[in-house]
């Protein structure tokens, strides 16, 4: 049997049979998008951005909603069955195949989550370039899904790992956003995981355009995370097994 296909099916079943995952993926976007929007609604308009604070807040809420759900799912995928994974590797799965099934599942779930966020955003903000908005939300989710997976591979504890992902996502969305509360942020913020996805999303929502430089940066970010998570996961799953038949 094809290990990759069986692995993917197993991961999807595991995801769907965890009700909290499904509820989070479906309910959180609405709460976060509207919550973030309302939180920013009372702020004065920003001089550099034409969008009203309510809509800007909703856009930031959407990207934060995708990031935090994808990040937590990436984390859980890595640590929920670490010991069973080791046994699976002993049976013959290569760590790379196992990781590929996990990341492919994560990417699929992230696209669904991005779709839900996009739907809420579509109803509340009416973006200029809907397809681009959906794509950039998915991209932001993939960045955080891989980041969550990396955190899970390095720090295989649910509570501590969740704190890292949640704190990072909140700080990232807040500092990367154009909130007047986070004005004059230092330059290094542009290296935060959500900075460029947010630039892409904001342009797509309000102008219907995007900057290729931002897209290239995010692509590079995903690649670097992929290399890191592969290296760390491979190291944690390394066994001295391997049998002669």
């Amino acid at each position, binding site marked *: *049997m*094809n*290990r990759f296909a*069986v*692995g993917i*099916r*197993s991961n999807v*079943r*595991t995801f769907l*049979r*965890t009700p909290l995952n499904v509820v989070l993926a479906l309910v959180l976007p609405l709460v976060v998008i509207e919550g973030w929007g309302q939180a920013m609604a009372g702020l004065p308009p920003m001089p550099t951005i034409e969008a009203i604070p309510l809509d800007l807040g909703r856009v930031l809420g959407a990207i934060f909603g995708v990031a935090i759900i994808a990040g937590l799912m990436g984390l859980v995928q890595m640590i929920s*069955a670490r*010991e*069973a994974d*080791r*046994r*699976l*590797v*002993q*049976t*013959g*799965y290569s760590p790379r195949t196992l990781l590929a099934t996990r990341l492919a599942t994560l990417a699929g779930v992230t696209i669904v989550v991005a779709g839900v966020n996009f739907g809420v955003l579509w109803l509340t903000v009416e973006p200029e370039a809907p397809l681009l908005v959906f794509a950039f939300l998915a991209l932001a989710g993939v960045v955080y899904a891989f980041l969550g997976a990396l955190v899970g591979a390095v720090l295989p504890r649910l509570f501590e790992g969740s704190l890292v992902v949640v704190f990072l996502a909140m700080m990232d969305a807040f500092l990367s956003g154009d909130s007047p509360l986070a004005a004059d942020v230092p330059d290094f913020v542009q290296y935060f995981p959500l900075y460029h996805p947010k630039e892409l999303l904001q342009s797509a929502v309000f102008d219907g355009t995007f900057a290729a430089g931002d897209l290239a940066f995010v692509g590079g970010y995903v690649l670097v995370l992929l290399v890191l998570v592969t290296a760390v996961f491979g190291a944690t799953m*390394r*066994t*001295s*097994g*391997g*049998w*002669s*038949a």
Partner: protein
Amino acid sequence: MEMTTAPTETVDGSKTLVRGNVLEKTYGSRLPLGRSTPVLTGADIEVRAGEIVGIVGENGSGKSTLMKILVGVLDHDAGTVERYGTVGWCPQEPLLYDRLTVSETFRLFGAGYGMSREEIDAAKQRLADELDFEQYLDYRVDQLSGGNRQKVNLSIALMHDPDVLMLDEPYTGFDWETYLRFWDMAQDLADDGTAVVMISHLIEERSRLDRVFEVRNGLVHDVTDDETESELRSDREGDDE
């Protein structure tokens, strides 16, 4: 160092399938002032085809560590492990995916072993019948009782008919009937040439074992000809006096 080699013949003609030479393992702490615990300090062990070998020892003596090193899921600090053939490993705690059903669990691990769908289905039916968990094949692992979960845990180690079977207290939670059936299976496998290595705490099982190794003070001692662990212990205490 890890090797896979052709099996070597012993004096009585049986093949050696697993050999650990001068194995050392210390569990260290990553923290600067953490404690490091040496567990194995030069353990030697050899397992031949067709025999049932018991590994005994006190709690914390290093039995599971030794088995994990022989299986290949734990790195050792020094020494060599040589293996021949396929290995089935049944860990002490069931290492399974809670939200998959029993059938899906077979499919996942069977794919790992490189088995075809037909081979997986056949193994599943055979083991479910032998260990009596047929009615639970569509149950999720997290909905099974401890004993049934352990049956699945054991079945995953057995499903690909391995040449070497490594079992870490495989009967925890079994009822008496299943326990007896398990021993019949182990004996049948050994008769067919499988090397069965088992961590055991029960003294009454010693009559079922061809050889018994005790892990003590970081080393492995062949205690096959000694009668019971308690006797061994009292002998040692007598020696110390």
